[in-house]
């Protein structure tokens, strides 16, 4: 069973490695790249802890082979901050106490970040809908929703020409 060489742009940098085709994307990210922010929750496609963005679209990295990502762009939670500055969604989770144990948090933040790209001013319903494939065993979701909405406000106030 032939290995494949893949090149994937991960968090802005190009990563090339040889992988067995059966290697799941999540294991490649965690074990080959050492990016352990992407979690394995259920390993049965049900929880969303393994969420990454593939060309900007949220997917379950436990339900995809690493070879499928060849030539594409992957963003993990480690890629949210830019130049040492936290992404508004990360600040939102801090300000609104959007996490407890933190296990679901990388997936929640990536879902939130992807939502804000499409919908800069989401209602509570919009946020709940967007995170409906991501399970949290701790928070009861309330503060996760608030965190995403906090981030939306922050991002809006950072727009050039916005009134704070």
């Amino acid at each position: 069973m032939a290995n494949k060489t893949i090149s994937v742009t991960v968090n802005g940098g190009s990563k090339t490695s040889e992988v067995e085709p059966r290697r799941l994307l999540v294991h490649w990210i965690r074990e080959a790249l050492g990016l352990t922010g992407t979690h394995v929750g259920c390993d049965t496609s049900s929880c969303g802890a393994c969420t990454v963005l593939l060309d900007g679209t949220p997917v379950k990295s436990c339900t995809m082979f690493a070879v499928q990502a060849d030539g594409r762009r992957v963003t993990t939670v480690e890629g949210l901050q830019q130049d040492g500055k936290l992404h508004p969604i990360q600040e939102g989770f801090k300000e609104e106490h959007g996490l407890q144990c933190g296990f679901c948090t990388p997936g929640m933040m990536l879902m939130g970040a992807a939502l804000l790209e499409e919908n800069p001013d989401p209602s509570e319903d919009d946020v709940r809908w967007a995170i409906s494939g991501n399970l949290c065993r701790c928070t009861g979701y309330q503060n996760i929703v608030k965190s995403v909405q906090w981030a939306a406000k922050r991002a809006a106030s950072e727009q050039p020409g916005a009134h704070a």
Partner: protein
Amino acid sequence: MFPRSFDYLAPESLDDALSMLAEHGEDAKVLAGGQSLIPLMKLRFAAPDYIIDINRITGLGSVHENGSLSVGALVRTHDIERSELIRRRYPAMAAAAPLISDPLVRNLGTVVGSLCHADPQGDWASVMLAMNADIVCRNGAAERRIPVSEFVQGPFTTTLDPTEIATEVDIPDPGADTFGTYMKLERKVGDFASVGVAVHLSFDGRKVERAGIGLTAVGPANIKATEAEQLLAGAELDGGTIARAADLCAEAADPHSDLRGSADYKRAMVRVFVSRALNAAAAGKAA
């Protein structure tokens, strides 16, 4: 969980994919969204020697109307959920899309993949049964069309040949005056249906011209409620007709008791959903 080892093939044209399939046939599996196949491979319920990933093939990802509606093999459930054309013209599809699995799965899972997977709890097959859709398949240079009602044979079984690729699902023009919906009882977001009902009607004035009804998760495969469809064709949607059609659908259902509910309960829910859908259609006519 690790699937068994396999060779990965990523053809860039449909012809290449078909010749790979012709060579490996029974030993190969087509990979579309992977949202059913990969979980099965992880559990080793599926252990193909070759994976033929069709995601790099161009030309399979479009939704367009040309006398009928063509939904290509790489159209994701998410694409349907967002399509303005679907919302305007194909309300049963628009209603079903957001009720299927969860946003992450919908971003990858395809409509055609769901039909090929033929899970009796899959939602798309009921919608396509109600809309009298055909699957278009290629085998080498040969193309054939199979009505979805003949395509799905039983649990996880279709009439697709191992060397065939389904390239699109083709949905007849619903006409100008239509009604459609999908109703789904699920225990939580992302769960498979306890019961699902797809209803599609084309009207000629106050009369139903064509009726399509598909039932999910109440039999060994999705069920086309043909007797109810025949009763409705040519009829007006009065209370008696609606009640009789709902009864016929409940009789057509063949559910089993399981964790999601008893057989009696599921049958009763089929009756409730069909009657709600038809009442909504009648109310739309009266308005």
